[in-house]
């Protein structure tokens, strides 16, 4: 760092401290002197980690660099994104198709990186859509959503998208139990106990292509499923789901679903379930769900409606599912790196129970069950599954992750803090305040068999006075902690998009060298591709006009189009002829009822535009591409319906009239 930089830093650091001193009690005093240098990534240098952060009610996935907290990318997933033409271009519209039709928004809560041997491998990120239950796969070579699958029999895909050690399956547990799609749902709401059921989807992942397939569903008693984690190592083959509303309340859950001292963690022997499915024990049920895939060859998405799912009713098989009592309305249900310890975070509990996988196995072998089953499912005795309890850890525990040294880190919503504790002796080692009301947290690799540690990020629900005020709504705040020492050290606040729920971070080295930089124009199999200006054309089919148009620095071909008539549906199929990295072209046309296109090098995208009136309509490139970008424009002339102006198109040859 040169002198000037040092000076700038000191000023910046000093002003942070100064501002801190003016704020209400406790807001800015947790920063120590060297925090700035720990998060400073100089211009032109790279962050060490990619941090994939759920965009909450924005429906998108954001990507930050750590430790800088710089926003690198917002990847559109479940919500339309006019900036990128996502959900507006003809090619991407099918990605948002569902059995309910085109759904342009969702609520994205959790992120799960694809794994090999229990460690993130940098191939794909899986994310859940909570509202209209869906699961999506983001390709980390293109940072684009490649696939979205809808989940039948579900309502609120919250307990998702958690995966097994080798991403054999990504699970999707329904938040709301509801009558299944294959039974009559027209029943009184107050018949929850009789008619409402849970369904847990097991979506298999093709090891090579990543393609998702709804392999089977487990039909369970009606409760709310919240979060989940797979077993690891010795507990590979098992899955753990947190459950609340075991009261099976159908109204005022705030009160009525908080009555029981203990709810459940549901332990699922998924290997066993898989065996039953293979043996043909599942029942095929008629349902309807969309499966949408995007092809990088045709640059086009397809949506297929599927109509059957195999369902295994767990009450009919004694050895798939067990309930473990867990205080109280558990949210997090997290498995430590060894696979032995399962931490339940009861959000209304005053202690943290740690369950032992070995003890659970022993309890099952010894039938150490409660006298009464729960809806036909055996309930393991609490003490027989319990390794121990962390006493007085804080208020409102939500979620736990781990470092490589046998420590756990739990977020506490009510007491606004992150608490570090030792798994073996269950002693609290450190606690640091968060600003304010932390929800999920994440440690780099903290969900895997081999945590990286180093950093922890707390994702807070309340922002209040952390940033310059921006009216009634403030962006949510993430807070970065250095966890390499005995004590956690707060380094940085950074704002996020939407509301971040869960996030994961992986080393940049797993991703950065695999990036697709261009699409080879020769491999473009789009049905409306234009491979060179010699192939440009404009074709009328009834009231549809198809424009085969190319973009290169810095002109469109054609850029003069005449003979379009009012009421015509014009499809601009824009091919970007560039073959160089980071040279997208944009495409906008006046009066379009949708958005722009943003076309990557070698790609073809289509914008539909309806000519609504007589006149002259400019088109132009929206993404600054060269010194002559502002010259990258053209005109579409619209004539009255039935006009005798012939359909013509040209570039460079339409000489000025005398």
């Amino acid at each position, binding site marked *: 760092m040169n002198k000037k930089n040092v000076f700038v830093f000191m000023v910046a650091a000093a002003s942070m401290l100064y501002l801190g001193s003016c704020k209400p009690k406790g807001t800015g005093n947790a920063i120590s002197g060297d925090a700035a240098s720990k998060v400073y990534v100089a211009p032109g*240098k790279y962050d*060490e980690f990619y941090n994939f952060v759920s965009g909450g009610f924005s429906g998108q996935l954001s990507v930050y660099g750590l430790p800088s907290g710089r926003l690198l990318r917002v990847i559109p997933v479940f919500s339309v994104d006019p900036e990128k033409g996502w959900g507006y271009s003809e090619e991407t519209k099918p990605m948002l198709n569902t059995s309910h039709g085109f759904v342009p928004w969702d609520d994205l809560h959790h992120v799960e990186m694809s794994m090999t041997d229990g460690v993130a491998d940098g191939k794909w990120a899986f994310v859940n859509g909570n509202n209209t239950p869906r699961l999506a796969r983001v390709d980390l070579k293109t940072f684009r959503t490649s696939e979205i699958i809808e989940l039948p029999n579900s309502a609120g895909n919250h307990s998702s998208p958690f995966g097994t050690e080798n991403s054999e399956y990504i699970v999707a547990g329904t938040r709301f139990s509801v009558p299944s799609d294959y039974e009559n749902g027209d029943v009184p709401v107050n018949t929850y106990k009789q008619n409402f059921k849970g369904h847990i989807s097991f979506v298999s992942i093709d090891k090579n292509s990543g393609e998702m397939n709804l392999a089977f569903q487990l039909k369970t008693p009606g409760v709310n499923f919240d979060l989940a984690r797979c077993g690891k190592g010795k507990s590979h083959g098992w899955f753990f789901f947190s459950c609340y509303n075991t009261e099976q309340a159908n109204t005022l859950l705030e009160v009525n679903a908080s009555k029981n001292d203990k709810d459940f963690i549901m332990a699922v022997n998924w290997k066993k379930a898989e065996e039953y499915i293979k043996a043909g024990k599942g029942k095929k049920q008629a349902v309807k769900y969309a499966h949408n895939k995007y092809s990088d060859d045709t640059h086009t998405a397809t949506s297929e409606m599927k109509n059957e799912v195999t369902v295994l009713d767990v009450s009919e098989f004694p050895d798939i599912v067990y309930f473990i009592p867990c205080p109280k309305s558990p949210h997090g249900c997290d498995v430590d790196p060894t696979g032995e310890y399962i931490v339940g975070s009861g959000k209304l509990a005053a202690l943290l129970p740690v369950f032992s996988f070995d003890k659970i196995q022993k309890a099952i072998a010894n039938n150490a069950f409660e006298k009464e089953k729960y809806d036909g499912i055996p309930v393991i005795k609490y003490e027989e599954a319990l390794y121990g309890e962390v006493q007085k850890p804080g208020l409102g525990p939500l979620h736990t992750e781990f470092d490589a040294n046998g420590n756990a880190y739990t977020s506490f919503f009510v007491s606004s803090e992150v608490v570090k504790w030792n798994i073996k002796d269950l002693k609290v080692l450190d606690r640091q305040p968060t600003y304010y009301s932390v929800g999920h947290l994440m440690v780099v690799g903290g969900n895997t068999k081999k945590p990286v540690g180093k950093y922890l990020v707390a994702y807070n629900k309340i922002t209040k006075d952390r940033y310059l005020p921006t009216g009634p709504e403030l962006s949510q705040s993430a807070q970065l902690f250095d966890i390499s020492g005995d004590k956690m050290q707060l380094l940085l606040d950074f704002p996020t998009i939407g509301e971040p729920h869960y996030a994961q971070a992986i080393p940049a080295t797993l991703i950065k060298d695999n990036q697709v930089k261009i699409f080879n*124009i020769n491999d473009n199999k789009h049905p409306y591709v234009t491979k*060179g200006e010699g192939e440009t054309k404009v074709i009328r089919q009834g009231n549809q006009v198809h424009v085969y148009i190319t973009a290169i620095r810095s002109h469109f071909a054609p850029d003069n189009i005449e003979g379009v008539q009012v009421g015509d549906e014009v499809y601009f199929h824009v091919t970007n*002829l*560039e*073959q*160089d990295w980071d040279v997208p072209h944009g495409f906008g046309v006046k009066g379009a009822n949708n958005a722009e296109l943003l076309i990557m090098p070698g790609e073809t995208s289509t914008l539909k535009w309806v000519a609504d009136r007589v006149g002259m309509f400019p088109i132009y490139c929206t993404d600054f591409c*060269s010194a002559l970008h502002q010259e990258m424009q053209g005109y579409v002339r619209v004539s009255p319906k039935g006009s005798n102006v012939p359909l013509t198109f040209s570039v460079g040859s339409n000489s000025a009239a005398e």
Partner: protein
Amino acid sequence: MKKKLIIALLFATPLFFVACGGGESTEDNTSSSAVEAPKEASNDVASYDPQRGEGKFDASNVKIGALDAAMATKGKAISETKCFSCHKLSDEKLVGPGWKGVTSRREPHWIMNFITNPDAMIDKDPEVQAQLELCLVRMPNQNLADEEAREIVEFMRQNDGVK
């Protein structure tokens, strides 16, 4: 003149970063918390050979003989997709200069270096820089394979009347 050139270069600089930020470096840039991002190609103008250009090709590995019509046909097909948006076959300038006569002005290996490695050469070659002043659009890197570059040269020779 010199002043004008500097202005042109200044103008081109941001574009240059767009094209080169990321570079060809394979070193590990992220092993510690913040490490050097890839550097752009060296700006060592002194060692630049304007007869040869900069890149993989020189007189020893580019052999030219009688016109290979089949090769020229392939070159034309590639050019239609990747070049004709900006270049005409006559001597008339479109976005870039017309192709007529290029094979008598330039060595074949110089052309192949330029079309496969444009960014480095735009930054170093005095004549290319002069051309940039006229066109103001940096010739894009169109990701040509070596073989494709050779085929385009053959097509350029055909266009220039070589038999």
